[in-house]
């Protein structure tokens, strides 16, 4: 069942019609519609949103660490439709010892680096990502800096050479 | 005044020796005067700060070779122009026609190359 503020929101309604299990929640806080999606149906939903509602741009992919809550990570997608001048936020909640969501690079190739960044910073795996490796941190870096349990000053004071 | 060959060419020899000495001196001076330190990173080939990938001895576009070929053949033509130019006043129209024939044939080759696209560098090979 769609949450109250999204009852009239066309994309949400369409997704709900397509598969009721797709949307697990949502809100429209401060005029920004947000849909919580089931990670299993993420790709399907994204495909639909891109084709039907012209969300041809993925503005960004990022994540929020809700540590110590579980599921711990929210992977956040910001979609943008130039045609309708509209933005939409999607969220996938994942947790567990090896958090993983499907990669949306097959829908928007531009998600590539953003997903790598999330992988780098949060340690969330993206299944079927073409080139999932660290992007900002050195390849041999240990840990994922943007996790809440990663101290601000880092685990080590010296760099490996 | 210098008239004989040795006298005419003597200054050239002196200048050449001097130029060589200057060149060697310049190159060796900093080798002699400058301080010397060596380390592994400094000694490695410049590769924008990364460890070099592959060998520098790679082969290159055949275009360079084509240019060299074309250059050789036209350079000969150019060398023929000088004795021609020097005796031009004596022979006038005769020399002109001769050279016209010569150049026409060589230029035919030039346009052949041009048409073949050997001079087109932007095209991928």
């Amino acid at each position, binding site marked *: 069942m769609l949450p109250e503020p999204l009852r009239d929101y066309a994309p949400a309604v369409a997704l709900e019609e397509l598969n009721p299990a797709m949307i697990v929640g949502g809100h429209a806080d401060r005029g920004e519609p947000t849909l919580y999606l089931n990670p299993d149906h993420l790709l399907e939903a994204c495909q639909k949103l891109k084709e039907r509602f012209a969300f041809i741009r993925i503005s960004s992919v990022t994540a929020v660490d809700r540590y110590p809550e579980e599921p711990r990570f929210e992977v956040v997608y910001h979609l943008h439709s130039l045609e309708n001048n509209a933005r939409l936020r999607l969220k996938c909640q994942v947790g567990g010892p090896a958090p993983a969501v499907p990669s949306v690079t097959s829908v928007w190739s531009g998600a590539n680096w953003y997903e790598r960044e999330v992988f780098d910073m949060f340690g969330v795996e993206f299944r079927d990502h073409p080139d999932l490796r660290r992007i900002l941190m050195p390849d041999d870096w240990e840990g994922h800096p943007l996790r809440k349990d990663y101290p601000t000053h880092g685990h080590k004071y010296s760099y490996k050479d | 005044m210098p008239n004989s060959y*040795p006298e005419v060419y003597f200054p050239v020899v002196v200048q050449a020796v001097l130029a060589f000495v200057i060149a060697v001196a310049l190159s060796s001076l900093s080798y002699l005067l400058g301080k010397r330190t060596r380390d592994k990173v400094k000694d490695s080939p410049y590769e924008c700060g990364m460890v070099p990938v592959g060998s520098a001895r790679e082969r290159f576009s055949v275009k360079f070779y084509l240019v060299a070929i074309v250059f050789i053949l036209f350079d000969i033509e150019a060398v023929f122009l000088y004795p021609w130019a020097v005796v031009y006043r004596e022979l006038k129209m005769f020399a002109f026609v001769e050279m016209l024939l010569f150049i026409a044939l060589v230029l035919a080759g030039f346009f052949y190359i041009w048409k073949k696209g050997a001079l087109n560098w932007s095209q991928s090979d």
Partner: protein
Amino acid sequence: MLSSSGVPLNWYLLLSAILFCIGIAGFLYRRNVITVFMSIELMLNAVNLSFVTFSYKFQQVDGHIFTFFVMVVAAAEAAVGLAIILTVFKNRKTLQVDDINSLKN
């Protein structure tokens, strides 16, 4: 000071002969097509020296003209010869003379 005794004409011809022989040696010994080719150029140069020397002996300019033509031929030869080497290298992937002694693979 500079207008001294001069050099026997023979010396020039001898030098030419020595260079020619070295050219032959290179031609026979070397296995790299390009070096072999350069040995040929060396022989041509040796011959040119003889031409110019004879031109001096007979006080005529003809030897120079011959030399000039030899240069032209050498240039044409180099252009075509190196093109052949390029093509051969493309097909056989080697510059060793021994490996390219047959017309067919």
